[in-house]
């Protein structure tokens, strides 16, 4: 048997396993629904997916999902960028680390809800989810990239010094390859944080055209099926986004 056919078989096995796990949990959900016997407390999976399908027929559903996606990816992108720049600053200028480090610790340990409420006072409702996603990403990227810079092979840096490599060669050929795995790990971890916290921020700030606002309305009007349908959309978008990011990062890794 060739290696490729073994890999193909393994992949098929994994996919099948995933499918059965999915069916298993759907079954548990259905059993719980029968047991609870109240659509208000726990809608059935069939009703949830039917509702999701109905919602998906409307343009408004996609527009709201798109706006939420844009807000959170904007916050994520800004967080990645600021995290990298801040890590560069604190690596080049060591005293800056003493000032930045406690601030990052504070951001990490403060409850997200506190920041959301503060942000509601400080800025417009559309900006709150962007800011919250940004805050979730910033400390993770900062600490990961800083760690990557610190862990850069000292032997290679000495080699660069002896052979008088230019700054651009040193950065491009030694620092970047050393930092990339740390940056990728940070980006993958923080994307999930950004997505969850961003939606929570939408629920509290209620910007126009947002998944968060729909979740809030479902709660107010006791539309539990809608709540589940929108939540299913959040999970779906989150996993698609994570897969896309992983694919993109893999591509960059292969090219570098």
């Amino acid at each position, binding site marked *: 048997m060739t290696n490729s056919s073994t890999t193909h078989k393994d992949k098929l096995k994994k996919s099948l396993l995933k499918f059965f796990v999915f069916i298993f949990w759907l079954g548990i959900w259905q059993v719980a629904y029968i047991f609870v016997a109240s659509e208000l407390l726990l809608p059935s999976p069939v009703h949830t997916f039917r509702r999701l399908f109905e919602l998906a027929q409307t343009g408004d559903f996609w527009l709201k999902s798109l706006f939420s996606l844009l807000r959170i990816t904007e916050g994520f992108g800004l967080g990645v960028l600021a995290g990298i720049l801040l890590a560069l600053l604190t690596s080049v200028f060591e005293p800056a680390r003493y000032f930045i480090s406690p601030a990052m610790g504070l951001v990490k340990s403060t409850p997200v809800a506190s920041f959301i409420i503060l942000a509601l006072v400080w800025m417009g409702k559309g900006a709150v989810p962007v800011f919250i996603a940004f805050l979730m990403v910033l400390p993770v990227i900062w600490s990961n990239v800083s760690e990557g810079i610190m862990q850069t092979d000292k*032997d*290679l840096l*000495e*080699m660069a*010094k*002896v*052979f*008088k*490599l230019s700054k651009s*060669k040193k950065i491009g*050929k*030694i620092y970047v*390859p050393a930092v990339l795995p740390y940056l990728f790990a940070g980006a993958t971890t923080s994307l999930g944080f950004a997505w969850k916290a961003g939606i929570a921020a939408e629920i509290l700030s209620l910007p126009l055209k947002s998944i968060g606002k729909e979740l809030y309305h479902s709660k107010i009007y006791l539309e539990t099926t809608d709540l589940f349908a929108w939540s299913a959309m959040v999970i779906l978008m989150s996993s698609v986004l994570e897969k896309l990011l992983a694919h993109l990062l893999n591509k960059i890794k292969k090219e*570098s």
Partner: protein
Amino acid sequence: MSIKLLDITKSFGGKKVLKNLNLDFPDSGLVCVLGNSGSGKTTLLRLIADLETADYGTVEIDAGRKISYVFQNDRLLPGFSTLENVALVSDTETAKLWLDRFELGNALGKKPRQLSGGMRRRVALARAFAFLQPGDILLMDEPFKGLDAELKSRIIPFMTDFAKQGLVILVTHDEKEAALADLTFYIDEL
């Protein structure tokens, strides 16, 4: 004199590795540094290469002479090909020439992890030679470790050839290599 070490003292964690060391190196030739392990041979090379600072004393090197270094470990960029690793310090043609001389012409596109230990050693040697111009200084810290005798015998002439037009400082444990030297310093006795 091309390199002058004046009253050098260097300690690591309270342990003196070099003490009041004075050495004059000639402009060219093959100078061998011998000594027991831990006697400070590598530290001596690192001081010359400006990778360490002496606690006391000064290192004087003629202006305009570049220093190339074959480290004890290969120090190759893991994500880059053999050719890219050597072309990092020279132009591509020079890099190819030296890789060819060290019998790596058919491994230009291979990355360090795809090479054997001996091949990686040769890439490190090719990089050091590709960086050199006549009159420069070549520091070699046990450069032929891991190479078989036959390959070593084909590579050594490149070192002795360069020693005619520049300075080679060789740290080794091998008596045969040491026998090639124009001048030998026994660092234990310093």
